[in-house]
C-alpha cells in the first residue's frame, strides 16, 4: 500500500527527515512513535503533500505510484487521508457544505459521478449518526465552537465519508480525554478493513491501547530507529524514549 524509501525532507531549508524508510501493507495498522522533534508531523504533512515540505531525496510510493510530484488534492483523491492533529476552524463554511465539496471534488478527480443533494444527505445522516454527530453540528461553521472531541469525531466522519485506502492519524489523541479518545478510537476501528491501512502517529502509548497496531516504529532524528510489535509501545512506556533509543544507538 505505502512504501517510503530513504526519504529526506527539508522544511525552510532545515533537514528534518533523514532517510526514513517504511512499508505499510494493505489492511495493517502501523504506529509511528517518537519524541518531540523527531519528525512526526513532518512525516504526516509530507505524505499529504503540504507545500514547503521539500523532498530532497528518496521516494514515496502509494499503490505503486510516485506521490512526490502530486498536489495534496490528487493524493487525497487517490486515497490518502490525513486526520489533523489540530483540525482547522473555518468560519463561514458550514460543515455540511465542506463535506459535500470534499466528497464531490474527490469523485470528480477520480472521474466518478458526483452525488446529488438527496444522495449526499442520506449518506451523511447515516454516517454521522454512528459517530454521535448531530445535524445541528453539521450546520455550524466547520469546527467553529466544536470541543476537542467534536473536532476529532468530525475528522473521523470525514474519513468515513471519503473512504481512504490509507489513513494517517497525526497525534489524534492530543487534546482528548479518555472518553473522547475511546469514541474516536471506536470510530477508527469500525473503519478497519482488509483493503485499508492506517498509520497512527503518536507520542504516547495510550492511544495504542484502543487502536491496536500490527507494527510499531520508533522515529528519532528523522528516521526509523527501531521497529517491533505492539510490545514495543509498552517497553517505551516503561523505560522512556532515551533508554530505548539509547539501546539502539
Amino acid at each position, binding site marked *: 500500500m505505502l512504501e517510503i524509501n530513504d526519504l529526506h525532507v527539508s522544511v525552510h531549508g532545515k533537514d528534518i527527515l533523514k532517510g526514513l524508510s517504511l512499508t505499510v501493507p494493505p489492511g495493517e495498522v502501523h504506529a509511528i512513535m517518537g519524541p518531540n522533534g523527531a519528525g512526526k508531523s513532518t512525516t504526516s504533512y509530507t505524505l499529504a503533500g503540504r507545500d514547503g515540505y521539500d523532498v530532497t531525496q528518496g521516494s514515496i510510493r502509494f499503490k505503486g505510484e510516485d506521490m512526490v510530484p502530486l498536489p495534496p*488534492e490528487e*493524493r*487525497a483523491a487517490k486515497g490518502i487521508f490525513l486526520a489533523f492533529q489540530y483540525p*482547522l476552524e*473555518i*468560519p463561514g*463554511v458550514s460543515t455540511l457544505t465542506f463535506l459535500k*465539496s470534499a466528497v464531490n*471534488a474527490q469523485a470528480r478527480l477520480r472521474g466518478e459521478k458526483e452525488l446529488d443533494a438527496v444522495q449526499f444527505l442520506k449518506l451523511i445522516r447515516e454516517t454521522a449518526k454512528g459517530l454521535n454527530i448531530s445535524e445541528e453540528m453539521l450546520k455550524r461553521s466547520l469546527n467553529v465552537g466544536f470541543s476537542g472531541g467534536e473536532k476529532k469525531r468530525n475528522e473521523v466522519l470525514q474519513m468515513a465519508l471519503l473512504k481512504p485506502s490509507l489513513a494517517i492519524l497525526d497525534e489524534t489523541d492530543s487534546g482528548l480525554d479518555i472518553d473522547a479518545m475511546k469514541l474516536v478510537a471506536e470510530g477508527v476501528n469500525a473503519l478497519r478493513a482488509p483493503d485499508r491501512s492506517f498509520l497512527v502517529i503518536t507520542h504516547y502509548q495510550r492511544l495504542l491501547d484502543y487502536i491496536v497496531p500490527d507494527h510499531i516504529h520508533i522515529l528519532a532524528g528523522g528516521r526509523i530507529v527501531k521497529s517491533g510489535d505492539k510490545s514495543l509501545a509498552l517497553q517505551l512506556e516503561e523505560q522512556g524514549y532515551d533508554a530505548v533509543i539509547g539501546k539502539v544507538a
Partner: protein
Amino acid sequence: MGDAISTGSLLETATGRNTGAADWAEALRDRSRAEFAALGLPNRRLEAWRYSDLARALSETVRETGSLPTCHDMPGAYSAIFENGILDETQSSFREAGALPLRQILADPASPFVGHIGGVNPQDDHPLLSLNTALMEEGIVLRVPAGTTLEQPLHLRFDWQADTIGGRHLRVLILLEEGAKATLVETHGGSPSFATIVTEVRLAKNSELTHVRLERLGSSGRQSAMTLGEIGASARYRAFYLSEGGHFSRHEALLKLAGEEAQADIEGASLATGTRHCDNTTIITHAVPHTTSQQSFRGVLSGRARGAYQGCIRVAPDAQGTDARQMSRALLLSHRAEAATKPELEIFADDVKCAHGATIGELDADALFFLRARGIPEAEALSILIEAFFSESLAMIENDHLRGLATDAVQDWLSSHASEVSSVE
C-alpha cells in the same frame, strides 16, 4: 477605450448642453461650475484623495482587457435603465413607482425638489460633487410619501456598453417622507470613460431605506460615485456596497445622522484583480445625540490590484450617546497587491462609544492546506475561503432576494476570476 480627460476638457464638453433648464437649476450649475473650475480635478496631494489620484487616472489612455461585465437583472423591480449615461425611458418602469426623470425636474421652474437637489448633506470643497452638480442632466428623482412602502425595489441600472466621449454625470435624489420604506438597488456594469454618479438620500423621521450597490466595471472603467445622506430621527439607512474596482473606482458614503436614534449600517465588499483600483471612503457625521452607525468593509485583492478604505467618524460636540463602530479587513492574495486603510475619528463629545479595527493579511495557509488535503482543488479551495470571508457581510442583508443577488455577485466574480486568484505569488 478611455481617452485622456482634464479639468478643462470636462468643462468644455458641457458647453451648450445645458438647455431647457429652469433658472434655479442654471444658477445651481453656474455656482458649482465656478467651484469646480477653482478646485480642479483632485489628485493625491489632497489628503482625501491620497490613495486615489483621479487627475492622473484620467490623464491616461486605457485599454479594456478581458470581456466587459454586465449588470445584474432584477425582474419585477421598478427600473430606470441608463445606457451610456442616457436614460432609456422606453425600457424603464420607474414612473410606476412615482419616480421622475431628473431632466423634467431641472426644467420645472417651480419644482418641489428645489433645495433638495444639491441640498442633502452639502459638502465644502468637494471638486467632484461640484463637477457633478455643474454638469448633471440625467438621473432620477423619487419621493415616497409618508407612511407608504415602495412595494418593489427601484433598480437603477447603469450600463456602459460602448465608448463614451468625455464624462457623464448622473444625479439621483431619493426622499423618504415620514415612516416611508423603500429599497434602492444600483447596478453598474461596463466601462464608462469617466462617470460621476451622485445619489442623494434624505430620510425623514421613522423612514427606512435599504441601499444596495453592485458595481461591476470593466478594467478600463473610470467612475467616482458618492452617496450623500441625511438620516432623520429614528430613521434607518442600511446598505450593502459591492465593488470589483476598475481603472479608477471610488465610492464615498457621506452620511449625516441628523435626528436622534438615527441609524446607519453599511457592509462593504470589494474584490479586485489585475491592475484595478478600488476606493471606499466614508464620512459618517453624528450630528445629534443618541445616533448609531456601524460599518464593516472587507476586501480581497489579487494581482497588482490596489484597494483603499478611508473611514471617518465625526461626532459633534453635543452628540452624546453616540455609538459608532467601524471595521475594515483586507485579504491580499498576491505580494504585489496593495491595501491602504485609514480610520479617522474626530470626536468632540465625551459620552460616546467609538470602536474601530483594521486588519490586512493573507489567506490562511493552514486552512487552504486542510481543504486541499480533503481533495478540494486549490482554485475551489480559494473560492470557498474567499466566500467564507464575505459570508458575514452577506448575512447582514436581511432581504432574501437581495442577499441572493449579492451572493451571486460574489460567486460570479470568484468563478470568472478563479484563474487569476489561484496564482498566489
